[in-house]
């Protein structure tokens, strides 16, 4: 037994001392590790802690028409941000923030949670394009909510009502898929890039370079002192299109309420003057993130509003293909003296093929190549197809660019199909049946073409075989590093006999004469020529079975028109889905061509050119002036050069919805 004063074991007390020593050595090691061995790492980390890079967003370049009129510009907006380098409890503040920004508190918390695993320097983008009172809320709560901030952003202002929407395209936040592609490797998450149309094709030109401001901040995210370094943003460069806003307005109006596409091109250069695709969408909805429901509606719409049908709809060209057939037939020397008697149909390879005229209980009678074109006689072209054979048809069609991309400077163009023996063997491992050639002869069967292909091919035939590559920007206006590379040559000369050229173009002019299939589309005083097409979307036999649901499979109407008929300045291709009859498409095309011709006739350039210098007119004038004695009887006379300069001739000053 031990007394109360029995001292505790000295060994154990000493042991405690050694434990304390061990603890202190451990702590000293901890200090040594941080301050000596890893000091450089933590010094660097401290630098990053202090300096925050605040981005300065660069505005995208404007998009202009061929005369420099504004089509797309920017407007300034503010985006509400949550800074996560502040030490505040974001979830606790979520209710107040949500109330001030008119958001659902759950949405705010979801965003905070969503960003939880993102790098800390990346702010949370809470709400874009905030209203003035929301801006005021952020300003007023700088002290209570130091983590809430806003940044000035430039948003795209697109023309109203989907004007030129498909050609322009739209912008959006760069997607993860895009970031993995080499051409986007220098982009950062959150960057706004072109997602379609020229916004995508010329993104490199349009997109500016974001600048940054290096600021000293404390952990509450408050800037301390003056910015250390400021790299100003470099604005994107403007993009000048070949589109003419006035003609585009006319084309948009002509397509109002219809489904399909219009392409208007200058076949001498390949410049696209107008491009319409219907139905359209409002790209302004994409400037701010589009709601899921609206997006679903857009992508599930059977009329495919997001598709640029001018370059992405591949459909049977119908009778417009007969122009290419005619070129092939004449160049091969088959069609010149060919005469066919149309009784409303004929038998080829044991099958009866009807001519469209039987639907009107008529016949074409004796048909030559000219009548075959202006009356669009199917029997004539069945016979021509039989005589040419698929190989020769395919050779000419391919020469004129069918079944391959035109090389237009827009993304996601489709190539269409030009069938041939090899094509069928390759894709279906089947032999070509001679009977299939007959359908191809009138632009049916496996053949599929886009409006841009037809405009280009028929424009080339009317230009004596000069096939150009279409483009929406003049490469001369672009810096060399953004000129798109295309495997399609800018211009090819396809040999064409001038006699054949005259025959075809004259017959095309007859199409819009009282003799032709689109007589009503004749334009007084304008040398308009073209070819109608009515393309079945399914076979007649299948159509009979679907008697109750015919509307879904109504015929597509086509028209490809040129003005003037030889060496045209403009070629217009119109596709009207479910348009029923080619002559209806011809009216649309005529509307566009008529406007074009009117605008051209109003150009005083032709007068001005008669003067000594281009752009000025010589005028003679006489006037009175006072004599030296005061009586007003001195007569003067003189010749003056009036400089017309570049008077604004255009009707519109900018695209609809823009000033």
């Amino acid at each position: 037994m031990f007394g109360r004063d029995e001292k505790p074991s000295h060994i154990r007390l000493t042991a405690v001392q050694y434990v304390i020593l061990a603890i202190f050595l451990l702590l000293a090691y901890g200090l040594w590790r941080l301050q000596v061995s890893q000091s450089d790492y933590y010094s660097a980390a401290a630098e990053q802690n202090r300096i925050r890079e605040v981005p300065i967003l660069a505005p995208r370049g404007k998009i202009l028409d061929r005369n420099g009129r504004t089509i797309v510009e920017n407007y300034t907006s503010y985006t509400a941000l949550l800074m996560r380098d502040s030490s505040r409890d974001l979830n606790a503040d979520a209710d107040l923030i949500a109330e001030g920004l008119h958001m659902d508190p759950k949405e705010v918390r979801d965003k905070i949670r969503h960003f939880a695993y993102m790098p800390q320097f990346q702010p949370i983008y809470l709400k874009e394009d905030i209203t003035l009172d929301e801006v005021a809320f952020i300003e007023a709560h700088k002290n209570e909510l130091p983590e809430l901030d806003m940044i000035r952003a430039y948003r795209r202002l697109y023309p109203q009502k989907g004007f030129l929407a498909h050609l322009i395209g739209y912008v959006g936040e760069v997607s993860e898929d895009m970031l993995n592609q080499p051409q986007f490797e220098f982009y950062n998450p959150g960057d706004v890039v072109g997602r379609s149309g020229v916004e995508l094709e010329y993104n490199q030109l349009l997109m500016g370079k974001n600048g940054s401001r290096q600021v000293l901040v404390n952990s509450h995210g408050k800037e301390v002192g003056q910015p250390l370094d400021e790299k100003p943003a470099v604005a994107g460069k403007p993009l000048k299109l070949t589109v003419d806003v006035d003609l585009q307005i006319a084309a948009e109006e002509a397509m109002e309420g219809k489904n399909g596409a219009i392409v208007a091109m200058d076949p001498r250069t390949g410049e696209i003057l107008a491009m319409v695709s219907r139905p359209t969408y409002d790209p302004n909805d994409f400037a701010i993130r589009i709601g899921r429901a609206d997006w679903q509606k857009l992508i599930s719409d059977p009329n495919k509003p997001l598709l640029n049908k001018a370059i992405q709809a591949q459909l049977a060209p119908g009778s417009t293909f007969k122009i290419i057939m005619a070129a092939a037939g004449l160049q091969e020397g088959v069609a010149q003296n060919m005469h066919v008697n149309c009784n409303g149909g004929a038998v080829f390879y044991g099958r009866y093929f009807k001519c469209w005229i039987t639907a009107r209980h008529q016949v074409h009678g004796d048909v030559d190549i000219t009548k075959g074109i202006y009356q669009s006689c199917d029997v004539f072209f069945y016979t021509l197809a039989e005589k040419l054979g698929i190989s020769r048809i395919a050779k000419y069609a391919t020469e004129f660019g069918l079944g391959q991309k035109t090389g237009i400077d827009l993304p996601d163009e489709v190539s269409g199909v030009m069938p041939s023996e090899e094509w069928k063997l390759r894709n279906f491992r089947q032999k070509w049946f001679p009977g299939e050639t007959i359908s191809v002869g009138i632009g049916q069967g496996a053949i599929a073409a886009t409006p841009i292909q037809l405009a280009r091919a028929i424009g080339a035939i009317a230009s004596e075989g000069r096939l150009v590559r279409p483009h929406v920007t003049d490469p001369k206006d672009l810096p060399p590093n953004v000129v798109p590379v295309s495997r399609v040559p800018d211009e090819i000369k396809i040999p064409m006999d001038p006699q054949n050229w005259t025959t075809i173009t004259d017959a095309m002019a007859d199409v819009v004469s009282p003799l032709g299939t689109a007589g009503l589309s004749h334009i007084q005083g304008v040398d308009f020529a073209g070819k109608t097409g009515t393309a079945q979307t399914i076979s007649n036999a299948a159509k009979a079975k679907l008697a109750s649901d015919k509307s879904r499979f109504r015929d597509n109407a086509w028209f490809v028109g040129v003005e003037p008929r030889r060496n045209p300045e403009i070629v217009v291709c119109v596709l009207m889905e479910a348009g029923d009859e080619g002559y209806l498409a011809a009216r649309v095309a005529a509307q566009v061509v008529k406007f074009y011709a009117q605008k051209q006739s109003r150009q005083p350039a032709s007068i001005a050119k008669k003067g000594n210098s281009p752009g000025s007119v010589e005028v003679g004038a006489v006037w009175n002036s006072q004599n030296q004695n005061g009586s007003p009887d001195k007569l003067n006379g003189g010749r003056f050069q009036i400089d017309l300069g570049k008077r604004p001739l255009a009707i519109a000053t900018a695209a609809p919805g823009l000033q």
Partner: protein
Amino acid sequence: MPRNMSLRDFDWVLVAFVLIICTLGVIEIRSATLHTKFAGVHVKQVYWIMAGFGCMLLVSLVNYQALLERVPWMYLAGVALLGAVLVPHIGQKYLGARRWIKMPGGGHLQPSEWVKLILILAVAKYFADLQSRELSWTDFVKAGAIVGVPMLMVLAQPDLGTALTYLPIAMVGLFIGGIRWKQALAIVLLAGLAMPLAWHHLKDYQKQRLVSFMAPDNDPQGAGYHVRQSKIAVGSGGIWGSSSGSQTHLAFLPEPHTDFIFAAFSEEHGFVGALGVLLLYFIVLMRLTQNAQTAPDRAGTFIVMGVVAVLTFHILVNIGMVVGFMPVTGIPLPLMSYGGSSVLFIFLALGMVMNVRMRRFVN
């Protein structure tokens, strides 16, 4: 004052080292709060230190034997206060934990701090009264219960950090009181079994702190923020210290004048300065253990060693947290961190040590 007892017997060497550490603390508090809303608190800290010094003198005068006589009552009162804290309306809730009792006159009392002092005395009394060199199992369980009951009550507040500071009192008491290997093994086994259960009962923020302690870089701006910022502050100090002290001064370091004062000090004065402070603490602790050895009786030894245990634990947990070895628990660094309770507690504890020392020649 009894005979052969005077202030000359005060451990003035210990007091000198303690005051050096306090001074360094005050200077650092001033530096860390210079341009913040806390500017000027270093003056308050000086007042607290002066008040603490006064308390130390007072406590040293009351015979610790008299205190030990009343320990059962003090212990019961302490437990009662801890119970009162848990009762709504009496206990004040702040940041989700019920830790304070509102006092008449607007003050707030946090009983769990003062229970620490009572526990040192209670454990000392219990082991001093034991007559055997080796602990029996019953003694072992009883000693555990003395510390365990208030500890569970503090855990219920919930205040994990303070509850854990009770542990070293029990551990040192048991160790010096003659714990057997089997008993130590039983503690380890019990702790092992309790671990998953305890995890289950931890609050979300406590779990988060522990998780972020394990992998602070996964979430540098979230729960791991404190740990990472503290390590950056210490690390960027280098060997001789960072002249700008940007971590501290640009407010990246959280609470640079309270829990993270050692990080702020290490940033400004580097490895050399930090090691110097560690050395000062080591000297203080060694000096205290020496006083434990010269104590007039078992109870005196246990009292001093209880103080040593609490101080060592505070230093280990706080500096361990600052250098990234320990999770964030909100335990201040004794003598340096700003805060009235912390300063008063340390000086009262030192007062008890002086009390024991002054009576070393009393048989």
